[in-house]
């Protein structure tokens, strides 16, 4: 691996010398990677899933199950968070040495909230895909309309020019 400020290009550029004359003489690009791959010293997966809270050793406060009502759970956790902040304020006034338990509870609530938000990301990805498909369909339809219009204009012009030529021929 080059460590200079201006590294040279990858050495396999020489294999594409005769690409213009004979496209099959140069090697094909490598196939897409499957499974694990390494980037800057970090090994990652193709299908990266969000690790569950239990695997990270954090208590899960919202109910498990196939379908989670995200809005309700987020609102419930928000209320719990506010309550815990108030409790912390009370504890600091009355029994200041017992702050640690409350602070830990608040951090567990925050971690649950962030985990919920992160599990909404796949949904966002699908919504983005839907939006992209819709805009692509829209653009294609627009292109079809444009082509049709241009063809009609061209036909009309050809017809007019034929009339003009015929007119001038009979004259």
């Amino acid at each position, binding site marked *: 691996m080059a460590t200079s400020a201006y590294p040279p290009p990858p050495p396999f550029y020489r294999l594409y010398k005769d690409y213009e004359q004979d496209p099959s003489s140069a090697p094909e690009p490598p196939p897409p990677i499957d499974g694990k791959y390494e980037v800057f010293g970090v090994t990652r997966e193709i299908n990266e899933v969000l690790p569950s809270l239990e695997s990270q050793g954090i208590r899960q406060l919202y109910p498990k199950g196939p*379908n989670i009502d*995200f*809005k309700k759970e*987020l*609102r419930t956790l*928000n209320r719990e*968070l*506010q309550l815990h*902040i108030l409790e*912390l*304020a009370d504890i*600091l006034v009355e029994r200041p040495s017992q702050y640690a338990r409350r602070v830990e509870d*608040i951090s567990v609530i*925050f971690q649950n*909230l*962030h985990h919920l*938000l992160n599990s*909404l*990301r796949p*949904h*966002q990805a*699908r*919504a983005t*895909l*839907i939006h992209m*498909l*819709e805009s*692509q*369909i829209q653009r*294609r*339809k627009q*292109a*079809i309309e444009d*082509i*049709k219009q*241009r*063809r009609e204009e*061209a*036909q009309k012009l*050809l017809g007019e020019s034929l009339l003009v030529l015929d007119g001038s021929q009979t004259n």
Partner: protein
Amino acid sequence: MDIITQLQEQLSEIAMVAVNTFGTLQRDAPPDRLSSSYPDPLNPNPKPEEDAKPQVPAQPGAAPAQVQPPPAPPQPPALDLAEHPKAMSHALVLAAKRFDALVAALPLSSEEDQLKRIQELQAENEIVGLELQKQLEAAELELKQVEVLFNEATDNGINLKKPD
């Protein structure tokens, strides 16, 4: 910014406001009186105050001058102690309300609905793509025909033009 990132930023803001609240309160808190046997740190010379009041009309010089400086410093923190928590708790509740509003604005739908919609859109995209390709091919064919005709016309024009 997309709404999930906004929600995450709002969470960070709630955390920041809470931390700042407790931090400033703890930092600016005046010293507390531990027991009645120790002198009160908020009011170090209470006894001269009781004697100073009947003496004020008689001795407006030294005694009132002694009593005035000790009560003066504790006064400014008392104002902050009342206003600060109000402002900061207002900010905390505001941040929490904004979080709730963002949650309400989440455009959620079930996964099956999304997958069904994606399949519908893919099928429609295929159809539209085929139509587009058909139109393109027809247009290119017509373009070639027009080019051929144009070349013929220009050739005839050149050949039939009388040399001057």
